[in-house]
């Protein structure tokens, strides 16, 4: 390939900027991000998840999640066709390092990635005594850690076990849907590293987002629909045994 001097003059600074960004770990700014233009959720395709744990590792690195706590994790279900009410479920270290080899039997296996459901009617924000946890206009449930009392009432109120008290900061902590990346036009860390595309960030307010077509053509469910939390993490191929 022949590169002219003019092309080289353009490419070199571009490569320098790109290299700087890669090295700094900071994506380019997206100063025009307007919260009310978005309503974020996520699509998780159970049939595509291979339980590699990439998402869990990426989340822990990206968000400095303390050991033993999880903003996202992966569960492996082992379900008998005779009694789906008592599945065998494991999530060793949140599935961070993958899973042990499965037994060869006639039961079915599948993986279920979990994270905060960023509920539109979230029970956790309802109970916070000072409003330190809230739903932002773009549909992301966040915690103001400079304001949180650390009472853990929100941890009790979350039906999905997605919150914890940070062992050092002594405040509630949870998935932010990588908000710091969203505002810069990037996807979440977990979606970015998923090798099979089992996790797809979705903007429900964007008419061009493929989520709309997907929701129209697939049987999609949320976790614990009976809780009426307005969960925005949609699962394709969700088995009835999943809790």
């Amino acid at each position: 390939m022949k590169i002219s001097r003019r092309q080289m003059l353009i490419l070199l600074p571009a490569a320098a900027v790109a290299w700087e960004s890669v090295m700094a770990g900071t994506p380019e700014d997206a100063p025009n991000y307007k919260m009310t233009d978005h309503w974020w959720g996520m699509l998780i395709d159970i049939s595509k998840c291979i339980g590699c744990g990439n998402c869990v590792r990426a989340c822990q690195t990206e968000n400095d999640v303390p050991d033993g706590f999880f903003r996202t994790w992966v569960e492996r279900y082992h379900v008998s066709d005779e009694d789906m009410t008592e599945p065998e479920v494991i999530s060793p270290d949140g599935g961070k390092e993958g899973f042990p080899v499965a037994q060869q039997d006639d039961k079915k296996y599948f993986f279920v990635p979990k994270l905060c459901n960023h509920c539109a009617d979230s029970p956790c924000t309802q109970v916070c005594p000072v409003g330190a946890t809230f739903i932002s206009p773009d549909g992301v449930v966040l915690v103001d850690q400079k304001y949180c009392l650390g009472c853990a009432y929100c941890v009790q109120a979350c039906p999905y076990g997605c919150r914890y008290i940070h062992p050092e900061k002594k405040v509630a902590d949870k998935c932010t849907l990588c908000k710091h990346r969203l505002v810069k036009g990037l996807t979440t860390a977990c979606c970015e590293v998923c090798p099979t595309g089992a996790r797809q960030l979705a903007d429900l307010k964007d008419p061009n987002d493929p989520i709309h077509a997907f929701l129209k053509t697939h049987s999609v469910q949320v976790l614990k629909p009976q809780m009426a939390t307005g969960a925005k993490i949609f699962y394709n191929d969700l088995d009835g045994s999943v809790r």
Partner: protein
Amino acid sequence: MSGVEGFMYPNEIELQWSVLIVLYPFITGLVAGAFILASLERVFRVDAVKPTYRLALLTALSFLLVAPLPLQLHLGHPERSPEMYFTPHSTSAMAMFGYVYLWYLMAVLVLEIWLDYRREIVLLSQSSKGLVRWIYKLMTLGSNNISPRSLAIDDRVGWIVTLVGIPSAFLLHGYVGFIFGSIKANPWWSSPLMPVVFIFSAMVSGIAGVMLLYMAITKLRKQKIDIRCVDSIAMYLFYIFIIDFSLEMLDLVHRIYEADESFRSLNFMVHTQLYIPHILIQICLGTLTPLILLFLTQVVKFPEIVRKRIYAISGSLALIGIFAMRWNVVIGGQLFSKSFLGYTTYKMSLVTKEGLFVAIFLTLLPLVFLWILIKLLPPWPERNAHAPAAGD
């Protein structure tokens, strides 16, 4: 992972609410119950319980002063707790705590005690000497008028305050029950009956607590226990205990009969980890035994000495039972996974901020406050000080 059986969501393994959160409803329950007992005399004119009226008020105040401490110690950032007053979140049941607490403390208890003791405070501010004199002078709030007309107004206003205080006491403890009962994520807690059960169990613990305190203090003062008074208190304790037990059984039977998706998990928990604290301590030892004993005192004419002993045993068992109930609600509600597939364990630490020693200290602290309050505001008439010693 140690201490975990089956599958827990990974963030659920460590319990969030410790023994201090068990103490909190136990203490507020004693406050509410003691106040209800005091109101029996004041509003419902039950003269028999008059000897415990002032003691009940002082007991309620002593425990109310300690009530926020376990919460404060539990917070990750206790220095931020004033935010609950300044920027309360309108949809949060917990945010109302500060207001309900302040209302009950200042507008009900302190005001009622002040009105009831105003005459003594004024007289003591004139008769005592040194620092104590200044304390009493401060407590008069500059109001030294103890004319019959003035005292009659005090009495009338005090009656109104008590009248307002009864629903306030219900609010104080009903709200504590609501904090748990309104958590739909937790089927062990989520029940509209929870606030009602909390109110009646509060009345049981408060009445039993004041009855025991009255008997113990009277004995320590070498005075004669007013048997008519303790008979009446025991009768009220028995009837309220029946209502409390019925409500708890209604909740239990409803859960068993309905057997929703959480039933298998909760049933397993009650038959394993919670078997001792729930079935044996709360129901058998702390509820059925005192109920049977109290029932016997209602139908059999025991000698006075036997009745007193039965009341002492029943009251103590009732307190143990109500504490176990708080334990089973708070700790039991965190032992199972919200996936209904696993169980964790609670290991109480000894010397940490939320450990056993702090819990014991906080349980005894109200008794220290009560001792100070009794010294400052004696709840019994002065003439009793020279009465003959009790024979028992």
